[in-house]
């Protein structure tokens, strides 16, 4: 081993050190609550803080977990068709000028700070969604028990999912686009020469990048689970667990933001928050890992350029 390798190996080690110590610190700090409440920490939805008697404190994150999964699933469901068609449009239809314009636009969407999305979602999107989507649906379907109530500010699970979906479009599009352009040209030529229309060709080609589509879903889901700023501003932040997407809720991340400030006045609250963060991080990490592995394995099995 040469000296240069030895000296520079210090820096990648820092990266690994930071990453692993984040997990260790979180696990260490959430042990007290996990020991105290066990599995009921995840399945219970009571959030009871008590200043006088620590024994009365009880923290269950089911509400926040429900909100996180609900927003992430909704967001991914909205992102997928939008990013899929954007990717197809860029690869198949767009002339060069349009393609470049779209590339710049998507880059800007990807770099625009999340807090700007949050501000827009909270002050402009939420009232619009309330007036034009939520109220008509509640009026039409209010007799079903699910849609009987809604958040008066417009800040709700649905709005948060909408903002998340918009934020995830550039990332999902990038993955799908990369996979799509990796399909060897001969396949496309073969399909077209059989007399297929463009639609039919696209359908067959999409079948070839199935793994990349799943990877894009997993990655956007993982990203949606971990997103904080924009969600906190749009989800409404209330301890309500409902099937309706139009009710204000909590996500794990917004729970952290809203409760962390005064958590240290209680005995177990801060541990509960670290525990919640750990659960969220695990979901996020599994999704991201699955997405990244799928994306790379897919390229290998088809023998495409990696």
């Amino acid at each position, binding site marked *: 081993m040469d000296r240069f390798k030895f000296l520079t190996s210090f820096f990648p080690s820092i990266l690994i050190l930071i990453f692993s110590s984040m997990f260790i610190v979180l696990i260490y700090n959430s042990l007290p609550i996990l020991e105290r409440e066990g599995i009921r920490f995840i399945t219970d939805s009571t959030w009871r803080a008590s200043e006088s008697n620590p024994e009365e404190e009880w923290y269950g994150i089911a509400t926040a977990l429900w909100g996180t999964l609900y927003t992430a699933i909704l967001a991914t469901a909205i992102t997928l068709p939008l990013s899929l068609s954007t990717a197809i449009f860029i690869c198949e239809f767009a002339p060069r000028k349009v393609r470049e314009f779209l590339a710049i636009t998507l880059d800007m969407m990807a770099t*625009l700070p999340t807090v700007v999305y949050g501000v827009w979602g909270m002050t402009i999107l939420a009232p619009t969604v309330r007036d034009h989507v939520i109220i008509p649906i509640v009026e039409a379907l209010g007799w079903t028990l699910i849609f009987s109530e809604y958040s008066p500010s417009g800040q709700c699970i649905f709005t948060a999912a909408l903002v998340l979906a918009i934020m995830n479009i550039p990332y999902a599009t990038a993955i799908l686009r990369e996979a799509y352009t990796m399909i060897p040209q001969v396949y496309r030529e073969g399909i077209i020469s059989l007399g297929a229309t463009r639609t039919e060709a696209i359908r067959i080609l999409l079948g070839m990048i199935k793994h990349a589509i799943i990877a894009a879903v997993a990655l956007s889901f993982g990203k949606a689970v971990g997103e904080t700023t924009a969600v906190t501003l749009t989800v409404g932040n209330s301890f309500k667990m409902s099937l309706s997407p139009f009710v204000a809720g909590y996500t794990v991340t917004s729970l952290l933001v809203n409760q962390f400030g005064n958590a240290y006045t209680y005995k177990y609250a801060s541990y509960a928050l670290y525990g919640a963060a750990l659960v969220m991080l695990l979901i996020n990490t599994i999704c991201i890992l699955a997405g990244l592995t799928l994306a790379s394995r897919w390229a290998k099995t088809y023998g495409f350029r990696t």
Partner: protein
Amino acid sequence: MVLEHKKARIIKDRVFTIIIIGLTILSILPLFHITIEICIRGLQAIMQSKLDFFFGVPSPPGSSQLGGIWPAIIGSFVTVLLASLIGIPISLLTSIYIIEYPKSVLSKICDKLALMLTEFPTIIISLFIYIVVVVPMGTPSAFAAALSLTIIMIPYITIQAKEALRSIPFTYREAAYSLGLPRSKVIFTIFLGIARRGILTSILIGVARALGDTASILFTAGAATYSFYGLFGHAGAIPLLIFKFIQTSYENWIQLAYGAAFILTISTMMIILILRLLIKEVKL
């Protein structure tokens, strides 16, 4: 019969095309709406307090005056600068290691890890720095915020710099090594020079990320609305100010949040345009 079938297929094709174009427009439309709305409201706020917006402190909540966001600007500047000073060397050397020793276990792990860290929930970084730095130091500080931003920055710079170094043609590598220089000289004087555009791109991306990130400094920067208290005192930051002020019910603070959001949006767009001029394909 055959003709009709063909007609149906063509109609299907047309409908599909229209749907694709429609959905594409729908997915980029929000960006333009965001930009226009933020520009209108932000410019209104900036017009109202003119230069004072950049050099004044926020006026007390509820007053008719707006004041400015000077403490947030200086806070953002100091934290991002410090984060760059720490983060850029670490990430550049990491990317050099990954490219120079691609077969070693360490570089394989780091390659994956950098990708994973770009998708990492930034609020976790905030919690981590809170426990590791803020609690021992006893107070949130600009320094702790800078450390958070360093962790935000590292994966983006590493990935992009790695791509830049990888794109150096193999013949150049061979020629450089055949000069008989030691590896460190080859890398620092020749390779970094060849890849300078890519390296600059990577740094700009990292800075753009650090500048806009809110969640990672939420628990580490503290609250400094009216002044800047030095490196080891509480600090403000532009995204933090937006996040806090937009949730208040004071008209003048909400106005300030819009103004700050405008500045953040414009600076992000400038960085993206500079990147486009520097390099064609950007990986974000």
